[in-house]
């Protein structure tokens, strides 16, 4: 369920790092808690984000929630498919429904995030 090669935040984002590029989205636990997702608001490419800072927002039928950047860097690309099909976040949150790709400015930050095992223990304890 939670890929071993991802790192996870306490705010329920995931990030997968390939070289100096991080791809991020929200976790299956997050989409399940939010319910039907109807909007994903993402920054434009070129915007700089810092780890733990607001990156955008995701909106379900019930509520709107902030998304936080799991790593610092510059937005390289956003998943434009989510604008027309936000429900993909409910269907494939760890795959097709990635949110943004970030060019990492501080690669060492990744060590502050949780492993898959730690994240699963974390959401288990949250329940």
């Amino acid at each position: 369920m939670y890929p071993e090669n991802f790192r996870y935040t306490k705010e329920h984002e995931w990030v997968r790092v390939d070289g100096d590029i991080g791809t991020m989205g929200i976790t299956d636990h997050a989409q399940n808690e939010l319910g039907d997702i109807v909007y994903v608001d993402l920054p434009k490419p070129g915007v700089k984000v810092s780890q733990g800072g607001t990156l955008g927002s995701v909106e379900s039928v019930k509520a709107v929630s902030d998304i936080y950047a799991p790593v610092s860097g510059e937005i390289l690309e956003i998943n434009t498919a989510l604008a027309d099909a936000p429900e993909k976040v409910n269907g494939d949150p760890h795959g097709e429904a990635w949110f943004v790709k970030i060019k990492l400015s501080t690669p060492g930050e990744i060590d502050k995030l949780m492993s898959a095992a730690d994240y699963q223990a974390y959401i288990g304890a949250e329940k």
Partner: protein
Amino acid sequence: MLACAFMAAATALRATPLNSVHRALGAKLVDFGGWEMPVQYSGIIDEHRTVRSGVGLFDVSHMGEIEIRGPEAGELADFATTNYARKLRVGQVHYAGLLYEHGGFVDDILVHKVAEDHYFLCVNASNQEKDFEHICALNRFNAAAEFVSDRYAQLAIQGPQARATLQKLTPCDLSAIRYYWFTDGTVAGTPARIAHTGYTGENGFEIYIPPAHAARIWNEVLCAGEEFGIRPCGLGARNTLRLEAAMALYGHEIDASITPLEAGLEWIVKLDKGEFSGRDVLLKQQQTGVRRRLAGFEMRGRGIAREGYEILVDGTPAGWVTSGSPSPTLNKNIGLCYLPAAQAQPGRTIQVVIRNQPVDAITVETPFYKRAK
């Protein structure tokens, strides 16, 4: 990122007799006014569409019940509520407000006339104790109010196939029960009060049953509705359904600071029936006109209005959003808000401040959705 989502349910919450049934069905349970209630099973949008197109089943056992009995039961009901209870026929139901002297809502309720000397009130879960105390404090009549919430579980069967579903479980001819009428009969062999009422804008029934039989009857309703694609539905869909129908929700459109005239509920206020709690203030408001009124709106710009968001008219703060949501039926983002009375007519451009950004919206006629008759 889940700060705005529902809080996880804690252990001290009150539970309905169906709590374990909801858990077994995999419902997501949340704290709803101190009650641990299912917010969704399969998903809000799916459940919402099921009610609009087929039939859905809701556990609304958290709702409270109060009985008023005695030779002057009608007098007490009329003194405590805004609608004209004594004008009801036996077997008829109406919507009414329970008001403070200052005209604000204690609660909004359904009044069922069981007999000339017997009224049955269905009230909101989180207001039930307060309602009972309020009615008792107003009681100067040869009548007695009794708090009977523990005697009833309540299920709502709602949607175009609600009648066909429930008819399989009762010998009562449901087609003979007109809208906002009820009958005392049986459901699945158990005594039940069967009311042709609902909170979804769809045709349907609300049944009041003994709590000990609730789980069995719940399952029998699900079996009876299987051929129509019935689904259990949570409070999430109940909220989007009632919002499309522009029905008020206590704590949102109405509360102690809002009068029925401001909320667009003049149709439940019978000023000429004689004295009742709140009447003097309403009479004055009617003469001078209300300062603010509830209005419906649709978003024009991108974004969803949420409760508490500020409304701007001509760039100036002018009101607030009471409820807002995507509408699964209309595929629009809709909401209700309070506006200065002069601005509350349909067709006016307003702005909703969504996360510090003013976004265009337009006021529209309500209800947003009306079922085909």
